[in-house]
């Protein structure tokens, strides 16, 4: 178990370092960052001033080590556009994105788990096929478009929910539904296939032979085993949702980190963009690590992996 933990932790740290390096390289893609910051109408002199001011005249490896050293301490520098530290900006907006992600995941689980179980129990019936059709539709739905449709339908026509903006719980419903839509197909398929496998196993036959109630067999014996892969995919899906939050937050004008990133990209505010990429990647790494640990706790067979 200790060996497994150490191995997973080492990989996570190495991946985190890779992502740190990549997010540094990302902003150096254009060749000369000073020219990009200065904008198209800047003179050569302006560019030189910016190069001095942001320390871009130093050798690249010095800039890289400087960025790495500070980033590890949670210091991402100052925003070019907002008069604030990047870490403050992200800290203020991360709760919105996290809440949205959790709402999305919660909604997705509420829909995906029962449907997946029903489909498995009624395998190869019309019910099963209908559920699988729902998965296909969910997979094909462009999230930003679904967001707009909901805005027109629930927001304008029915007047049930606020159309867009940041605020109380009611502002999280529509974006949450849209996010959930993207996670439902894979969660549902996995629950279904896990349940089908579990239900055809020997221990279920034993449980039936013992005369246990149908519900008790389904929940205690079937779902408990099917839930193992679902737990890890749920964590991974949350990571994907946070990464994809930029689209949903922009559509609904929710001021989370995704919206912050979009604003910063359009304003050439690279320190912020860099930091958001990094933070979302680190959260994803932490979530997958958590998922692996949860799996090891739930399923002892995996601990030797």
């Amino acid at each position, binding site marked *: 178990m200790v060996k497994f933990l150490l191995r997973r932790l080492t990989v996570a740290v190495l991946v985190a370092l890779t992502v740190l390096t990549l997010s540094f390289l990302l902003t150096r893609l254009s060749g000369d960052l000073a020219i990009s910051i200065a904008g198209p109408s800047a003179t050569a002199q302006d560019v030189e001033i910016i190069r001095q001011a942001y320390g871009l005249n130093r050798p690249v490896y010095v800039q890289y080590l400087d960025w790495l050293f500070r980033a590890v301490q949670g210091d991402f520098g100052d925003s070019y556009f907002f008069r604030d530290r990047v870490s403050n900006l992200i800290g203020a907006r991360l709760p919105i994105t996290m809440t949205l992600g959790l709402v999305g995941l919660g909604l997705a689980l509420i829909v995906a788990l029962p449907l997946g179980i029903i489909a498995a129990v009624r395998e190869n019936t019309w019910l099963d096929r209908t559920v699988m059709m729902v998965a296909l539709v969910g997979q*094909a739905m*462009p999230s930003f478009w679904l967001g707009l449709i909901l805005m027109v339908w629930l927001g304008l026509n029915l007047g049930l929910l606020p159309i867009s903006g940041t605020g109380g719980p009611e502002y999280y419903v529509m974006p949450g539904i849209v996010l959930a839509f993207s996670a439902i197909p894979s969660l549902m398929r*996995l629950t279904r296939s896990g349940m089908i496998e579990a239900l055809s196993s020997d221990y279920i036959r034993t449980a039936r032979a013992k005369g246990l109630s149908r519900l008790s067999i389904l929940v205690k014996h079937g779902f408990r085993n099917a839930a193992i892969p679902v737990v890890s995919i749920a964590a991974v899906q949350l990571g994907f949702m946070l990464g994809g939050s*930029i689209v949903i937050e922009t559509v609904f004008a929710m001021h989370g980190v995704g919206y912050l990133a*979009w604003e910063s990209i359009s304003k050439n505010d690279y320190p912020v963009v860099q930091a958001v990429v990094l933070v*979302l*990647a680190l959260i994803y790494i932490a979530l997958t690590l958590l998922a692996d640990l949860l799996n090891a706790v739930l399923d002892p067979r995996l601990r030797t992996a």
Partner: protein
Amino acid sequence: MSGAVLPGQGAWRRLLRNAGFALGALIVGIVLVVAILAPWITPYDPFAVNLEARLVPPSFMEGGTAANFLGTDQLGRDYLSRLIYGARISMIIGIATVITSGLIGTTIGILGGFYGGRVDDVVMFLITARLSIPVVLVALAVAGLLGSSFLLVILVLGLLLWDRFAVVARSTTMQLRTLDYVSAAWCAGSSQMSVLMREILPNIATHLAVVATLEMALAILLEAALSFLGLGVPAPLPSWGLMIAEAKEYMFFTPWVILVPGIALFVLVLGVNLLGDALRDMLGTDLSR
């Protein structure tokens, strides 16, 4: 990922009888033909502005005219013509991304699965690192830095979406490596390259085809999302995502303006996914992750 690597006997016959496959093939086939024939079947120039006929509803709706079957956009451009040219953009992005990412991912995956050991550790690390990178965000950031263009979208998506190819190529190669016919090829004195290209690759091809459909669907959706956010395919190209973005301002008054390109996008992606699902059923494996 259980089940045999190789499709069983009669698999192709089963596939052809699958209703989902038929529907998927029909949708993708139609879009492909429309995309190829675009210059010959569009009623109007998709870029021709007509400020006197702006936001004309489709001909089957109230106020529509026979001249513009799907109406016109906010600049009076024929919506049907733009939609048809948009199919070209989606198909080119989808296919080009799959080819790029497929080459990268398959190479990486086969190497890991075939050689195992240290090589596989590196491959697994690459996959893990790639998965931790938020695709949409990075694609937007790169487009913001370098300036968005059609080619850049293909390049960025191609360089980012190889992970699933690598995962599947790796695990299927691993299963094949120990099979008798591969050992037989070794014994017969085949070179490493020849074993990889002639024994392994053809036998994992169907699995890669399933991944290809998933990635194509994803690439089409991502291009639309990037274009919708203004950092994908640049205007005035009629990307479906861009059409939705341009129509967004008017959607509260005339909802059909976002419905037309949105439904087109949805149906195409559904078609591609149906193909993939049917292929997966045929193989009897679950690659949905």
